[in-house]
């Protein structure tokens, strides 16, 4: 068996040499970079990394893509003290203690980085207790995609800037067709609360108090009840199909199959919709009456592990990702640099414009998970309330109250 192990070691060594590991064997520095991206997005990251390697001879960037298993992998790696040097990050409350605060470095390199060019709202998504732990590399706001062909066929007017939820509902109702299983809109029964909070904000409330002290009066406020009730009613009146209970079909799949006239999502859906060849338009999120609308911001930010052996190189790498050159390459999300957006003429493009308009409106609030260390558990109760409301198509007040009650022990 010993012999076999030796052979195995040989085979492994030979394979790794032969298959791309060769440069690793000779490179002086290997930088491990972990991401949850896959497919096309991953290809973009690899391209940027290659350019970084070209600009920094002797450095090899090992792009590690964990896809769906990102958290599992990261937990194992951090738990065992063997994290990647640089990684995609969003869950700062859980990881920040092992991440490098970047404020000092940012201050030092503010000029060369042209930090002014990056909207503060984006960097704020990485802040814990005032310190920034990540530099965004790309971002998205939320919008409504709509199928222009379907609108035309049904003779429905396309959404206009400043539209409201009642506008949306009125339009949606006209698309419902039982025979072809067509709907005007889709509502989520199991949304990611991170994204869902935008509806609370837009209706003038939030999940949790600004200081994180209480959910009572926020999560179950009349405004909150109103939001859930509205979505439940849309489901009840068949203005919208319900996603996430019983039907595995995703909103994007339905939209791509022309079964959905309008679909609320973000940049990550755009690539697929383009590919499916849908003739679509993009509208801002609708408002609740005359209240100001607000979107969640999803940013892919890059963080550096505290345990990295090479903090300077890691920081260089992060900076490179925020450089105009790299930002331009990221076609699957939005440029974090205003200058790049303008240069690429995105702010005027009717498809991209609503995203930036949403960004401009969305700097007032920060996400609930940054406000309480037990938020992930509190959130479970909220998810349950949303799901229950969508299943029963009503009773929002009762379910939200129960979520608040169930959350008490986590707020201690």
């Amino acid at each position, binding site marked *: *068996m010993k012999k*076999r*192990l030796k052979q*195995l*070691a040989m*085979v*492994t060594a030979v*394979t*790794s040499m032969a*298959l*791309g*590991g060769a440069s*690793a064997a000779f490179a002086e520095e290997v930088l*491990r970079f972990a991401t*949850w*991206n*896959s*497919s096309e*997005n*991953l290809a973009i990251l690899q391209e940027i990394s290659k350019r970084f390697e070209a600009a920094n001879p002797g450095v090899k960037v*090992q*792009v*590690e*893509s*964990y*896809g*769906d*298993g*990102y958290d*599992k*992998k990261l*937990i*194992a*790696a951090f*738990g*065992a*003290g*063997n994290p*990647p040097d640089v990684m995609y990050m969003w869950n700062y409350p859980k990881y920040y203690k092992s991440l490098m605060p970047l404020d000092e470095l940012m201050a030092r390199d503010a000029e060369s980085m042209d930090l002014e060019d990056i909207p503060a709202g984006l960097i704020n998504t990485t802040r814990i207790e005032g310190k920034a732990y990540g530099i965004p590399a790309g971002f998205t706001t939320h919008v409504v995609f709509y199928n222009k062909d379907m609108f035309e066929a049904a003779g429905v007017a396309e959404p206009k800037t400043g539209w409201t939820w009642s506008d949306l509902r009125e339009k949606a109702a006209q698309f419902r067709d039982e025979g*072809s*299983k067509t709907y005007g809109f889709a509502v989520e029964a199991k949304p990611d609360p991170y994204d869902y909070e935008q509806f609370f904000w837009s209706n003038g409330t939030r999940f949790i108090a600004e200081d994180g002290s209480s959910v009572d009066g926020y999560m179950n406020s009349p405004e909150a009840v109103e939001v859930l009730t509205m979505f439940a009613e849309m489901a009840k009146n068949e203005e919208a199909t319900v996603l996430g209970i019983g039907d595995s079909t995703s909103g*994007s*799949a*339905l939209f*791509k*199959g*022309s*079964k959905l006239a309008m679909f609320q999502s*973000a940049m*990550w*859906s755009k*690539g*697929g919709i383009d*590919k*499916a*060849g849908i003739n679509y338009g993009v509208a801002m999120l609708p408002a609740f009456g005359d209240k100001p609308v607000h979107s969640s911001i999803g940013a892919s930010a890059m963080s550096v592990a505290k345990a990295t052996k090479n903090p300077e190189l890691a920081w260089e790498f992060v900076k490179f990702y925020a450089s105009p050159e790299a930002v331009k390459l990221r076609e699957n999300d939005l440029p974090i640099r205003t200058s790049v957006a303008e240069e690429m003429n995105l702010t005027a493009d009717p498809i991209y414009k609503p995203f930036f308009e949403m960004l401009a409106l969305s700097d007032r609030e920060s996400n609930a998970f940054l406000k309480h260390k037990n938020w992930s558990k509190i959130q479970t109760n909220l998810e349950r309330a949303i799901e229950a409301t969508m299943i029963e198509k009503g009773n929002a007040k009762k379910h939200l109250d129960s979520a608040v009650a169930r959350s008490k022990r986590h707020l201690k």
Partner: protein
Amino acid sequence: MTRALTYGALLFLSAMFIIPFYWTFITAVKSIGELYQFPPVFWPDEVMWDNFVTAWFKQPFDVYLKNSVIVVILSTIGQLFSCSLVAFGFARFKFRGRDAIFVLLLSTMMIPWDVKMIPLYMEFNMLGWINTLKPLIVPAYFADAFFVFLLRQYIMTVPIEIDEAARMDGANSWQIYWRIHLPLMMPALVLVGTFHFMNAWNDYLGPLIYLNDQSKYTLTLGLSMFKGLHETDITSIAAITVVLCIPPLILFFFAQRYIMDGSIGSSVKG
């Protein structure tokens, strides 16, 4: 009459079991347009065989394949050898602490992987095995409890007199294992080999946790790379899934004949 009934039942059940595979297959060969059609199309107008090629070359699947094959073959050998030895030990000897040790062995099947994950990772990290195929291969040489249990149950259906006869014939314990029981448990060994092959071939968590570099990735890891956080490349997943199914299916088709080969497994009296 009963024969017709048997066939009817078999055909009905087969349909139940074959639908998913069929579905995966047609998903793989659908064009984008048909992929999102509702109600779903049962046979695509245009069969996009190209999808297989496209999916295969989206990632270095040839590298993944090589890694998977190394892992699967080396670990299967280890599993067959170690498990049959241990199973024979438990089934055919009386020794101090046997029953207690066996219970211990059984209990290791019940440990949820969640808890073992971090400590094991630390251990392999200390050994310098992270980002190598070793964590996926070496443990297989130390006998998996599930297979030991399976083989032990099998050995215990063989009359003890066979061993005694061999002992009278002058065979020592090793010879009884090697010359009598190993051939006798061949169907069960093929079964274990098949099971382990499937497990190793389809293992996702192990490669995910222990491998970092794409040049070390296995096929399943590549497959999962098509599933991102927000968007999923259904066509590629289906295509690669179909490709991934083929080797185990071929293997299985031949293995099952061997498993069913009564001339070996048949009992002594019979």
